[in-house]
């Protein structure tokens, strides 16, 4: 037998944890057809039966507030799932059963998992799942992800739900709805087959709630005069508010007699008093993220070590190939493209692994919600969520890590905008070469250059937010936060680690393809042939030098700028090669592999580059697109070729513009 289960639950209901625990590494992240929403699927076997699991996206309800919610309910109505597993948080049952109340009336069979039973127990709540089950008419179970016995009960409940095809008993809920003016009138005009998968009760309530998608669908399904009649009754917002009250009244009636609790006065915990503090909240959050970043280096270092190992092997292969007289073309293709790309990706993958682990942990423990709270106001000015502050901080280390960290942002447009802005943050590679270049050219003035770069970064982010924000963040998404700050949870390490490994593996395979492609093209263009004649890239650079000169860059610097889009460290190698004669491709990949800089680099630079040109170059490479791996990671996170290219093009053009401005300011000074 095989069956499909869909997981449905509000944020913090433990849905992802259950999904990861059930499917382990057998999961796949893709896209919902035609949408930018992430689709998470996985499989598991139990007693020889294969189950596929769909982790439904979605937030607090089944309304049409977002693509996620529309996808979720369309998926359920399509009948693709044999059973829907609805999750609720036992420690806040009243509120978290709202999803169940909003679900009631959809025709897919379902069962209810009351998660976080351990937390509820600690709070002194006693929940009688049997009583709730009797009232609801569907299997109901208490569950705690950290308890291994829970899973046996889960499988048993799942099997029961599939066999019984259980539906929620909605008669008490419908009795509540009938008290709303206009409910009966509208409900009578809709039949079971008006829109398949939805009952008349559910559709009527959505009309009363002014659900745009349902209203539009009904317009197609019902005669005009019926629709006109319906719309007349739902003009005020009162009906929507009343529908919400009905749901909670119903939840109260379900829970009455089934839950006993000892009322305690609520106060903030010690940690929350720091995080929510007027002055110390922000420093505490930044410190938490930075400590998290440092901690993420511990698991990252071994992976980065593997990358360095690949570099060493690469060096050995290169020298032995040259000894045996293999053609320069083949050697280059193998060493400068194939093995080199692998090494870039592995090194940065360490960062992705660390960041995914630490961010995943912060989210699971509940700290992420506090971060959202503290930075809601600041990030709101950029049209973003409070959480966006985290990818920004990570990007000081590695933009790929920042892009991977943007996963925690649940709105696609805001996620894309966050990554687009994170690109403006100078990454570790920039910090490795910018201070060096600044010191060579400006000596004691170098700190001033750094300060100027940071100021430009802030301005850049602000302007970029204005430019892209209009398209990416719809006005209705600009709304401020209305969000739960969940109680702190103990992490479930096994599920978390499985998730992190799965995610890192996915990122690796997707990113490696893009990196190979881009590095291959770059290498081909920079390949000078065995005779040492000018490569296509050099010819191109020379040809458009009159134009790039205006931007403050002689052709050598312009080519180094282009190389910096592939990898910033490589730009220095390209400069050395171009001013001292040598192969760009090899110099680039050696610099990327962390090879020693030419001993005469300072003299080479000072002899060939003027100070305004140097300033232009520094600004241009700092704000150029970070590197090909970041580009690939961005694509992996946002699933849109169009937007990835759009952002990349924007960064190339704006970096040249910034370089141009810096150059002309430099000309005025020197």
């Amino acid at each position, binding site marked *: 037998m095989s069956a499909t289960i869909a997981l449905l639950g*509000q944020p913090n209901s433990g849905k992802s944890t259950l999904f990861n625990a059930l499917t382990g590494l057998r999961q796949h992240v893709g896209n919902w057809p035609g949408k930018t929403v992430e689709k998470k699927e996985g499989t598991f076997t139990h007693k020889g039966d294969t189950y596929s699991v769909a982790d439904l996206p979605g*937030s*607090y*309800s089944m*309304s049409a*507030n977002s693509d996620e919610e529309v996808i979720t309910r369309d998926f359920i109505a399509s009948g693709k799932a044999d059973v829907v597993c609805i999750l609720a948080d036992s*420690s*806040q*049952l*009243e*509120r978290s059963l*709202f*999803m169940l109340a*909003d679900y009631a009336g959809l025709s897919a069979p379902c069962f209810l998992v009351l998660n976080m039973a351990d937390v509820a127990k600690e709070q002194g709540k006693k929940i009688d799942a049997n009583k709730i089950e009797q009232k609801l008419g569907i299997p109901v179970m208490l569950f705690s992800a950290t308890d291994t016995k829970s899973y046996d009960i889960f499988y048993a409940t799942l099997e029961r739900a599939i066999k019984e095809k259980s539906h929620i008993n909605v008669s008490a809920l419908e009795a509540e709805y009938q008290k709303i003016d206009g409910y009966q009138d509208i409900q009578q005009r809709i039949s079971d087959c008006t829109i398949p998968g939805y009952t008349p009760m559910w559709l009527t309530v959505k009309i009363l*709630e*002014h*659900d*745009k998608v349902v209203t539009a669908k009904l317009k197609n399904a019902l005669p005009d005069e019926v629709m006109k009649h319906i719309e007349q009754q739902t003009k005020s*917002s009162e009906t*929507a*508010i009343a*529908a*919400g*009250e009905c*749901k*909670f009244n119903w939840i109260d009636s379900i829970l009455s007699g089934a839950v006993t609790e000892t009322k305690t006065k*609520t*106060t*903030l915990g010690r940690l929350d008093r720091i995080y*929510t503090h*007027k002055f110390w*909240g922000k420093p505490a959050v930044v410190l938490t993220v930075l400590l998290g970043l440092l901690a993420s280096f511990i698991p990252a270092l071994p992976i980065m070590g593997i990358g360095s190992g690949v570099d060493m092997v690469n060096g050995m292969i290169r020298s032995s190939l040259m000894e045996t007289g293999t053609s320069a073309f083949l050697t280059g293709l193998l060493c400068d493209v194939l093995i080199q790309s692998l090494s870039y990706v592995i090194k940065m993958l360490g960062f992705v692994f660390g960041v995914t682990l630490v961010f995943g942990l912060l989210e699971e423990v509940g700290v992420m*919600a506090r971060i*959202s*709270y*503290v930075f*809601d*106001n600041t990030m*709101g000015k950029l049209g973003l969520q409070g959480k966006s502050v985290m990818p920004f901080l990570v990007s000081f280390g590695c933009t790929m890590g920042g892009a991977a960290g943007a996963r925690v942002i649940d709105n696609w447009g805001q996620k894309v905008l966050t990554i687009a802005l994170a690109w403006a943050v100078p990454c570790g590679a920039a910090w490795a070469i910018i201070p060096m270049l600044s010191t060579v050219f400006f000596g004691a003035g170098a700190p001033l250059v750094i300060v100027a770069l940071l100021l430009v970064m802030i301005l850049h982010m602000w302007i970029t937010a204005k430019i892209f924000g209009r398209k990416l963040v719809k006005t*209705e998404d600009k*709304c*401020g*936060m*209305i*969000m*739960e*700050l*969940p*109680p702190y949870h103990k992490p479930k390490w096994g599920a978390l680690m499985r998730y992190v490994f799965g995610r890192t593996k996915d990122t690796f395979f997707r990113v490696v393809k893009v990196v190979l492609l881009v590095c291959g093209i770059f290498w081909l263009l920079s390949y000078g042939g065995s005779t040492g004649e000018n490569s296509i890239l050099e010819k191109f650079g020379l040809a458009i030098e009159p134009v790039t000169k205006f931007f403050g860059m002689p052709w050598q610097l312009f080519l180094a700028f282009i190389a910096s889009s592939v990898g910033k460290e490589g730009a220095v190698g390209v400069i050395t090669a171009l001013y001292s004669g040598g192969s760009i491709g090899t110099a680039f990949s050696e610099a990327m592999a962390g090879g020693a800089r030419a001993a005469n680099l300072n003299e080479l630079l000072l002899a060939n580059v003027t100070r305004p040109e140097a300033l232009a170059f520094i600004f241009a490479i700092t704000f150029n697109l970070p590197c090909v791996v970041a580009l690939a990671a961005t694509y992996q996170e946002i699933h849109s070729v169009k937007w990835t290219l759009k952002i990349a093009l924007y960064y190339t053009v704006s970096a040249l513009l910034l370089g141009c401005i810096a150059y002309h300011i430099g000309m005025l000074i020197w």
Partner: protein
Amino acid sequence: MNLSELKENSEAVISGIAGDARFISRITSIGLTPGCHVQIIKNDKNRPVLLYSRDTMIAVNRRECTGITVTEVRK
């Protein structure tokens, strides 16, 4: 008065909600409905209002607070 005008540690009952369908849906799905009891935990300038309701700690942006009218409950 609206939600953001409540002082820290005060308690109130929501008396009305006003806004577009999207706002009503969002505020309802987090559990804030008319008649619902709230306890203000923190109310700092430039920060969302932090409140406790239906066993849940909830943060509500200050702008969104203007759509939620409340009646203070004297303890």
